[in-house]
């Protein structure tokens, strides 16, 4: 693996210094470093930050690859300074089983641009009626810790209480999309379109 020497860079706003990366870790941080085998990156005027982490991303895959894939989303994330993103469950099929979360997790590893941590659905199909198999997702290879029906609110108070309690067993977190649906119901505004052939 190539080594990288970032010269006179400000680490999280500190005074400019040199930063040597070798074998996947930060090897040294200090002024005047030299590493003949390393590729040099001129860090003058630049700021080094710990890789950004996004708790809330929609990668659309599986299901809506026309809008985004795990790979294209990962690339956008890396270009945004991210090294890890949490992928929401409102894919198609919904990430409410160990199988789907592992699929997303594997797609992330294959892309290899950022660590993709799948978020599991709280309820089956995001319908807000029955808890999804939160334990199976937690125990899966993806090691899911955050659960969310994002895009929908877990509106039923009893179900929300059950979910909050159930995930305590594996130190999980419920991420709530806070929207009382009864207050934001739009009247059925049928999507009118001119019938085919009548244009």
């Amino acid at each position, binding site marked *: 693996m190539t080594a990288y020497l970032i010269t006179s860079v400000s680490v999280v706003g500190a005074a400019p210094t040199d930063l040597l990366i070798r074998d996947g870790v930060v090897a040294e941080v200090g002024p005047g470093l030299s590493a003949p085998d390393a590729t040099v990156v001129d860090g003058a005027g630049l700021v080094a930050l710990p890789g950004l982490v996004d708790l809330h991303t929609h990668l659309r895959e599986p299901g809506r690859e026309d809008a985004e894939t795990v790979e294209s989303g990962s690339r956008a994330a890396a270009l945004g300074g991210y090294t890890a993103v949490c992928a929401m469950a409102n894919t198609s099929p919904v990430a409410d089983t160990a199988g789907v979360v592992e699929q997303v997790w594997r797609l992330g590893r294959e892309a290899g641009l950022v660590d993709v941590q799948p978020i599991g659905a709280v309820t089956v199909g995001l319908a807000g009626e029955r808890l999804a198999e939160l334990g199976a997702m937690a125990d899966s290879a993806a090691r899911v810790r955050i659960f969310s029906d994002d895009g929908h609110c877990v509106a039923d108070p009893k179900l929300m209480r059950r979910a909050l309690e159930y995930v305590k067993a594996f130190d999980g977190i419920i991420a709530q999309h806070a929207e009382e649906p009864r207050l934001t119901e739009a009247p059925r*505004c049928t999507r*009118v*379109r*001119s019938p085919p052939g009548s244009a």
Partner: protein
Amino acid sequence: MIKHLLSGGDLDADTATEILDTAAEMATVAGREIKKLPALRGRTVVNLFYEDSTRTRISFEAAAKRLSADVINFSAKGSSVTKGESLKDTALTLQAMGADAVVVRHPASGAPHRLANWVDGSVVNAGDGTHEHPTQALLDAYTMRSRLGRLAGLSVAVVGDVLHSRVARSNVLLLTTLGAKVTLVGPPTLIPVDIAGALAPGTDVSYDLDSVLPNVDVVMMLRVQRERMNDSYFPSAREYARRYGLDGPRMRRLPEHAIVMHPGPMNRGMEITPEVADSRRSTIVEQVTNGVSVRMAVLYLLLGGNNR
């Protein structure tokens, strides 16, 4: 001169007055043997109606034909089920056909504004969702002016389901621009929370129709859909009619000169009783005839010159 007519707020006092004055001239055409003016000969006006509304469509069709324009009716009675053509593709089709103006009625607020981005011609908003209906406001103002001789200083009560009423919004904007004072009346559930700030400063709100009636020059009754009951905006049709319906006794509490207006179609027995609808104070029929003249004026002022 403006290029599109999408909102009552698009018109400043001078432009609005010019439309009303032009409409007065256009009205004389109706009395002639030959009800035709050559002003828009060779122009193409497309009526793009996603909601069935014969009343408004035939009014625009009559107006355009009286000005010798070619009219193409395109009633897109689509439904969410049929996978039809998007608004943008329909717009590009109309553009390709050389439409000089598109008169559009659509159930989604803001559709005319989107359409205006996709066609070179002029767009006239003939009612979009719960947003606006500017030509209705113009014909209402025209009717008030012809009946009461003026607009500045008039006190106008707009009564009923203001929340969902595109007619109310356009009227509040236009009447305020023309110097009238508007009071919105209805159950609190049907009056938007911050209507004054949103639309026109100086707009009053009252939940008590009887307190407003004695000192208004115009009372405009809005159509109230009975289905609103199912969404519990009001308990029952009877209660609504009792508190906010305009019946004979209430009409007699209006000042002598006051007029009663309604955009139609009416729910007789709900917001208005037959006695009031058919009384001499009611301008409901003349609002329809004035609609053609006002729409002629709008089409002429948008398409008559080279305001490309």
